């Protein structure tokens, strides 16, 4: 009786799954990769993949963390500080030897998870808007980092640094780490918790009314973001062979830019991690490309701003028709 209407609903439903945005991003990524390949023919060689993945790993993982927080409808302005914190805690605890490195990783991750969970607890229990909590927390965790590691230093076993940056028996360790992290997310997303995350982001009150412990979900989400941010910090430490208490700052805004580029909504509940991955890759490759093109460094910043605006504007204008 009402078939036509329902078909329309079903069709528009499928369109709303956000895959269209991803198609655009993928297209853009392919274009960038093709140009990149022209400029750097070694692009697809294992050595280059190792180098590039080592370089992109911190941004990708930071963006994953940022995405988790944004899915709950929040935002994390302290991400850069937590990243530095993870890095600092990691490097002051490492010594040569596998056990020591693993222990240091566990300690660093425990610290960043706790820092994230503390942010989450403030958001969940204190009724403070995430943007403000994490703004204040950025001072807090930045300060803690400076106490842990007052100036650049620390130590990461040289063997690990070499294996990570130059490949380990031909394996691109950072690429594997990224893949493992994304699989981890994929698993998390398929658990009840993953669905709850989207539920809380999409309609917090509704989730609460259906017996979801929204506060716990937020704390766990921020904690999980802390985990990925910590991993990013550890990656950066291994890449650079050391710790630096102020190195993380740019990651706050870059991770937000990657997530937004990947179609994650500021209002929560909308977006796919693969979008974020594409966004982070695109940002990283684009800035790298600028290095190859020889455009004056003065113009690089302008171009970055314009690319961000253009990408997000195209996306919002494209989706507008469906909403309005």
């Amino acid at each position, binding site marked *: 009786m009402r078939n036509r209407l329902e078909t329309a609903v079903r069709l528009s439903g499928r369109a709303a799954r956000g895959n269209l945005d991803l198609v655009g991003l993928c297209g853009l990524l392919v*274009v960038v990769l093709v*140009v990149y390949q022209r400029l750097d023919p070694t692009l697809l060689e294992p050595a280059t993949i190792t180098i590039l993945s080592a370089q992109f790993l911190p941004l990708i993982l930071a963006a994953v963390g940022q995405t988790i927080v944004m899915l709950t409808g929040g935002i994390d302005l302290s991400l850069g500080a937590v990243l530095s914190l993870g890095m600092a805690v990691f490097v002051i605890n490492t010594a040569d030897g596998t056990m020591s490195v693993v222990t240091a990783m566990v300690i660093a991750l425990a610290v960043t998870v706790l820092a994230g969970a503390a942010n989450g607890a403030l958001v969940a229990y204190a009724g403070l808007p995430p943007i403000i909590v994490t703004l204040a927390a950025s001072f807090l965790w930045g300060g803690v980092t400076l106490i842990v590691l007052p100036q650049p230093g620390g130590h990461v076993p040289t063997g690990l640094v*070499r294996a990570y940056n130059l490949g380990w028996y031909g394996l691109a360790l950072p690429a594997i780490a990224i893949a493992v992290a994304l699989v981890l997310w994929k698993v998390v997303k398929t658990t009840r918790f993953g669905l709850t995350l989207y539920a809380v982001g999409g309609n917090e009150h509704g989730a609460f009314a259906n017996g979801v412990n929204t506060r716990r979900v937020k704390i766990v989400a921020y904690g999980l973001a802390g985990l990925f941010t910590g991993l990013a910090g550890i990656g950066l430490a291994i890449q650079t062979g050391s710790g630096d208490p102020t190195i993380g700052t*740019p*990651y706050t805004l870059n991770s937000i830019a990657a997530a937004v580029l990947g179609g994650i909504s500021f209002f929560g509940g909308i977006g796919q991690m693969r979008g974020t991955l594409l966004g982070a890759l695109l940002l990283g490759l684009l800035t790298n490309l600028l290095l190859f093109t020889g455009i004056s460094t003065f113009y690089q910043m302008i171009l970055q701003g314009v*690319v961000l605006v253009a990408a997000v504007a195209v996306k919002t204008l494209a989706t507008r028709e469906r909403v309005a």
Partner: protein
Amino acid sequence: MTGTTRRALIAAAALGALLTTGACNVDSGGTTPSGAASSDPSGGTAGTAKALKVGWSTIYLAPSWMQQTLKMLEEDVARLKGEGKVASYETFNANGDTSQQIAQIQAMIQQKYDVILVDAGSSTALNPVLEQAVAQGITVANFDSLVTSDKVIRVGTDQVEWGKMTAQWLADKLGGKGEIIAMNGPAGVAVSEERWKGAEEVFKKYPDIKISANVHSEYNLAPAAQAFASAYSAHPNITGVFSQGGALSAAALQTLVKQDKKLVPITGENYNGFLKMWADKRKEGFSSLSTAQPNYLSVIALEAAVAKIGGTAVPMDITVPLPKITDDNLDQYAKQDQPDDSYPIQPIPQSEIDKLIGK
């Protein structure tokens, strides 16, 4: 729905086109010298005949000190190009992002640069990538903000000595006792920490000198002025100021002048705004000892790298002596006709450079 895809594709195509044009520029301009370079990666025997592909990666380009450095570097590049020693030159600005700087250096390795100059954003984080560059046969010269790796040529001043020297002058000036405010650069940054480390060593010897406030600020006048004003309002009875940067010194002196307070000795740097004010207030009894992070560090780094490729045994650590600006030689430095935000420095004679790089 089709509209969406179309728009996304158009945007992608437009961006692609933009990037491709950029790419072509490099292809036409950049391949010849790098081709020449790759034929002889060690650079040993070809000697002076080979023109080099040079790049500078800097953590910041915006500060005027960097701008002056860039100008000086470009002048030297022009001269070396004239001599046929340098083929091309490129500047990369990491804009404060160390990870970005790593990417830049990696890109330079990919593009087979012969010489990489680096003003580092982190004293440790760049080590692996720089060592990688060295392993690829690239000559890396690091200046100003130094890394800890011993595989690269490092051209710098002794930052600990900077702190020691200026702090010692202040301690002498105060007669070993008094109350001071310390003005430092941003916390967690190697340059700032090292200068303070040197200063602290000196002040430890003088238990009667009380450091009543230790202020951190960007090396930048406006925030420094605010930071100093707050510290000063809490401690109006200070008898001296230890400052490890020119803008910080200018901020402190300016505050004292504006508030019409007694002018206490302030250590400084060759920041023209400070030097001009100092020259102006010298007759009122104001005194300072300033030093400088000379812009010619970049030139020395470049020449050291070129000389090394040319076969000279260049020392890996080149420590450039810190200039001393005192009440007596102030007039040589203070440039009334130049903007405040510049760093006047006396040129270094070529013979001095040659001596430093072991020619």
